[in-house]
């Protein structure tokens, strides 16, 4: 398996587009359907910029914080494991988010862009894989799933809600495995 394909699979469970979609449902219900494309576009763009930024500044940030990339892997694994457990438990991304005042494109910034698409797990994954595999490769592996997650915001779940919930939980379970692997790698690396 190529490095890029491996990263693509990892970011599929890190971003977990179906968990994002399920979590976004309360906002989506309050939005005018004609606004959804703009919301989805803004959400994907915000998340792509944030993940790209995380990947680019990761090395310098860790250097500033006096943390070795190997040690950061342990922290990244813990953050990702927390998100994974939430996804398994609730079948959706993020902590409890109460639908608020975000209207129109603003819902693309919050909550779709941040924290649903660009959540803690995605940001630390962009950092750690950005350092290990290169910023561009990591970012390029994340972007397709950001696009999928944003595109799903345009789709009615209706009778597929239960299926989306189930797949989101399975992705969460897979993320538990990925994050455990990252922690072990952080402990075992030089």
């Amino acid at each position, binding site marked *: 398996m190529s490095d890029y394909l491996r990263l693509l699979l990892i970011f599929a469970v890190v971003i977990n587009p179906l968990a994002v979609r399920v979590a976004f449902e309360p906002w989506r219900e309050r939005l005018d359907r004609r606004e959804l494309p703009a919301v989805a576009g803004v959400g994907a763009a915000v998340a792509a910029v944030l993940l790209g930024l995380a990947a680019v500044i990761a090395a310098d940030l860790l250097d500033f*914080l*006096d*943390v*070795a990339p*190997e*040690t*950061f892997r*342990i*922290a990244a694994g*813990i*953050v990702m494991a927390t998100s994974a457990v939430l996804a398994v438990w609730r079948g959706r991304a993020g*902590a409890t*988010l109460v639908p*608020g*005042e*975000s*209207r129109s494109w*603003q*819902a693309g*910034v*919050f*909550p779709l862009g*941040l*924290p649903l698409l660009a959540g*803690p797990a995605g940001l630390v994954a962009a950092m750690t894989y950005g350092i290990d595999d290169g910023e561009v490769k990591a970012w390029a592996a994340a972007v397709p799933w950001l696009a999928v997650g944003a595109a799903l915001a345009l789709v009615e779940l209706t009778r597929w809600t239960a299926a989306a919930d189930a797949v989101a939980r399975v992705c969460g379970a897979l993320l538990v495995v990925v994050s455990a692997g990252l922690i072990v790698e952080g*402990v*075992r*690396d*030089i």
Partner: protein
Amino acid sequence: MVRGLLGTLCVWLFGAMALRAVVIPPEQCGPIAPTEARVAARAAAAWIERNQYDDGSYVYEYNADTNVEPGGYNVVRHAGVTMSLYQLAAKGDLSVLPAADRGLAFMQANLYRSEDWAAFQDPRGGQLKLGASALMLVSLEHRRIATGDRQHDELMREVGRFLLELQLPDGAFLELYDQPSGAPVPDRRSKYATGEAFWGLALLHEAFPGEGWDVPTKKVADYLSLYRDEVEDQKFPPWADQWAAYGLAEMAEWPPSDDNIAYARRLADRFGFLVRAESQRTTSWWSKLIHGRQARAAGAGTWVEALTSLHHLASVDPRMADVREELGDRVECGAQMLAERQVGPDELNGYDRPDIAEGAWFTEGITRMDDQQHALSGLLLSEPILAGRGRGDE
């Protein structure tokens, strides 16, 4: 939107701070110049010289809080401390030879001879321990390298043959030889002594190539690489064995087998992690609560010794070349920590015995002779690596 964003960022900030405080505190890894490492190593050697008794033994332990030497002695550590002095001599500092030779004389005065072998016998209990003789052999080998003096060549062979008395068919070693029954004590192994014997035998082959010392050396290398952790029930394998790392480095040009290299890589991972974790520890109450107290120099020093050995292996063997740079990073971090934690000449206020404090490493008020031994060895062997990394002396 703004309220939601701010709320989310506040939660993240709290989470990041918790992570920083618990999992990723800063790693205290500053740069260190080669000369600083050498000066610290020399100061440790000076501690050993100052604290040697007339019979060649050393101050074993000192409690600075109570100003008491609790007593006790350990012949394996005696051999190790003497060995560290000879390591320094082998790197060109012959000024330590008188003290090292006194340490050797103590071992020679307590030799047990039987047929064609000789062993360093514990003068207190009369025990013949593998580790004590193995490190005596390593001492003799470094003395030979330092001086070119061949007067102890036959003794080296005799001690080597004692090691072989304790070797099992699978390459493993038993820890003790039972003098009255004239046989090794069965089923008693040491997680330290096997690696010590491995290194001693590897050096013996280097000193006397063609005499067949490489055969038992390779057998123990394979035992350590493939079976030791399972047979000896190591809970968190691989056992962090710096002696094995020394031995593997000695074999670098033989060269080691693929299994040996795989083992060396696992050791590199383990020692690298230990240094990273240690570099996050401080003397603050919070750090002690979360990460435990700082390791004693007898521990941290062994990690640096191991990393320097593995760095040598990575410099010679292309199968390890990809980790050479990372190993260098950890060597530098470990050496810097050791040098920083050593009691310097301007830090002696408050010590009742400045002669025992200067150049020493204390943990909770206590220093033991092997603190100085392992730190000396680690710092000494890190010097050329630091120089090679362009850590100039400014």
